[in-house]
């Protein structure tokens, strides 16, 4: 069925598209263009002496072992956050999808953390996890466990991964739950009649039918972990101890805002932008194909 609309002239379609084009232009192309331009300059904080340096900033970054370390760390961090957030959300969604008393209340409660601002959740977690002020932190130390994320890099990384994943579980939960509910009951019931047990049913029916949702969420989670966790990490550890929790986006902030090195910071943003473009392209290709069939 062809649902295309044919316009008589070009004026009306242009007018209809114009607001969106303007928005995209103002809020995406213009700033992105500025970032690309800044990434090829060297300038002082006040922007008085701007000098074109070509690819220098990129070359310096790629030759900097600390930058590469940060990139590897970011990949590990994003992977850990995505797996943890999606795994937990899927488990919760499967249980909330069952017929249990008060499941509406569960569902509502599970969505709450999504509404907490990242810096807020970080401060709350500090009250819980700080080795000297926090409830759980003090208890761990009293139990003889040497818990101190100020000095233990692994503990710090574990903490920011959990804090970041916790915030994203709600979002994933909503999508997984919707995905589960869209699986036709008839299919599951047919499998049940054929004698498929719970786990087997889940593996052979639920998982494949949830694949589009899972793939979409994977991309969203990776992007979330790479970018939106800035507030959480910055408030919890400032990237420390050492550089053990410094992800790429934290480094962009530190070099650009704290350090006023606009050139290098912009170059890092451009690299991150390329990453997101690549991820989005992959998502469109795969998801597009899935929905077509």
């Amino acid at each position: 069925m062809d649902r295309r609309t044919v316009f008589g002239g070009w004026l009306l379609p242009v007018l209809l598209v114009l607001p969106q084009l303007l928005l995209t232009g103002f809020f995406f192309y213009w700033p992105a263009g500025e970032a690309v331009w800044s990434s090829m300059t060297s300038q002082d904080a006040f922007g008085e002496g701007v000098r074109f340096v070509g690819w220098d900033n990129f070359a310096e970054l790629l030759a900097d072992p600390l930058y590469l370390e940060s990139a590897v760390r970011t990949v590990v961090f994003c992977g850990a956050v995505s797996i943890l957030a999606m795994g937990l959300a899927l488990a919760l969604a499967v249980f909330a999808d069952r017929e249990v008393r008060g499941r509406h209340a569960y569902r509502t409660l599970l969505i709450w953390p999504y509404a907490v601002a990242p810096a807020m959740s970080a401060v709350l977690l500090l009250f819980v996890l700080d080795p000297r002020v926090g409830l759980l932190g003090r208890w761990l130390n009293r139990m003889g466990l040497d818990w101190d994320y100020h000095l233990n890099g692994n503990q710090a990384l574990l903490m920011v991964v959990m804090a970041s994943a916790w915030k994203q579980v709600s979002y994933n939960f909503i999508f997984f739950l919707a995905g589960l509910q869209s699986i036709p009951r008839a299919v599951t019931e047919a499998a049940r009649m054929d004698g498929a047990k719970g786990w087997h049913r889940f593996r052979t029916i639920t998982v494949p039918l949830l694949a589009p949702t899972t793939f979409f969420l994977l991309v969203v989670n990776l992007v979330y972990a790479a970018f939106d966790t800035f507030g959480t990490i910055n408030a919890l550890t400032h990237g420390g101890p050492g550089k053990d929790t410094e992800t790429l986006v934290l480094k962009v902030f530190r070099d650009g805002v704290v350090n006023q090195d606009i050139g290098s910071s912009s170059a890092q943003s451009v690299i991150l932008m390329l990453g997101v473009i690549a991820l989005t392209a992959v998502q469109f290709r795969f998801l597009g194909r899935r929905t077509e069939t």
Partner: protein
Amino acid sequence: MKRRTLLAGSAAVTALPFAQARAAERTRIVWWHAMTAALADQITRIADEFNKSQDTVELQAVYKGGYADTMNAAIAAFRAGQAPHLVQVFEVGTGTMINAPGKVVKQVWELSKETGIALEPKNYIGAVRGYYSLPDGRMASMPFNSSTAVLWYNKDAFKKAGLDPEKPPVTWPEVVKAAQAIKAANAAAIPMTTSWPTWIQLEQFSALHNLPFATKSNGFEGLDAELVFNSKHHVTHVQRLLDMAKDGTFKYAGRDNAPDAILYSGDAGITFGSSSSRGTLVKTAKFDFGTGLLPYDPDIIKAPMNSIIGGASLWTMTAPGRTPAEYKAVAQFLQFLARPEGDALWSQNTGYVPVTFAGFELTQKQGYYDKNPGADLAVKQLARGSTTANTKGLRLGNLSEIRNIIQEELEKALQGGQTAQAALDSAVTRGNKVLRAFQKTIKA
């Protein structure tokens, strides 16, 4: 009752246009600051007093976030041609501001010369003035809120550990011994900790022992300064901290002022922290606290030098179309700030030190130090002896980044990943890279 408030309200409404008309004739200047809570109230008080003291200038004080946010906001505003007249910039931003190219800022000496309003550097305490002056003594920014680092200790813990609660340790060997006694008697959860690890354990330590932190008089005499805080004495000190951390007498509690929470809760026997913690301690401490001078190492120096300051100063910024009348108004306000009574009141209300000699003497005369024993230690520590090239402070570009680097390397050493020497060497190498990058942008 109701009618009266109504009447009062209508009176206020009719009075408003007149007040506005009068304000419109005045020169309006804007001051961006970074003070919160009780400190912000003091800023409001100062602005009100200034506006009432004369009828030609209307000063508006605006809170712009923390120190870093305020400085970034001012820089962004400058780029947009909308810089505030005055901005409060923290001491680590001094290197960036003083090296600002062209006509970004109007330094105090320049402002004074152009407007004919006297702003005398010699009225200011040396250690304060030096931090914000050019090498030849001309003042670049206006000293405002200044503090220094001191030793805070928990008298209750000292008593429990069998130490004299009226005698804080004076040298580092004494500090180590006291911390061991506190640990042995389990008199405090944490025997010793430090706020601002870099500022206190390296920057202040260098000044106290007359050791250079960087070449070129700590950067005062050139952008090509190189960091040198990996000397034998610095390594010995950091090694001491590492050793103390290992035997549990020193606890690293985070970067910058994060460890302050431990100071306020009384969990630490000894804390190194800002002298401006006094206000909060007086209000909230549930333990008997005492204060002492920063300890020194008798193996390095017999009589310690002055300590250096922390805090912020006020910078006059330029913008297209700004009139001489506006600059004059700014100068008038700066002159107003320097009055001894204003300086003394600010200091007593906040816990910062008086920045002028006259302000200090007035505070003394008013009996404030008699009523608050220990409050004068900070000023005395800042003003003792005469400043040398190593004790004027630091003039390094991107100092905040260098501080971050040092903290990172210290953290790695405290985790046992590297030795004191390796930590300082690596911090110096990485820090020098930051300095070179800064130098490059300034020369561009």
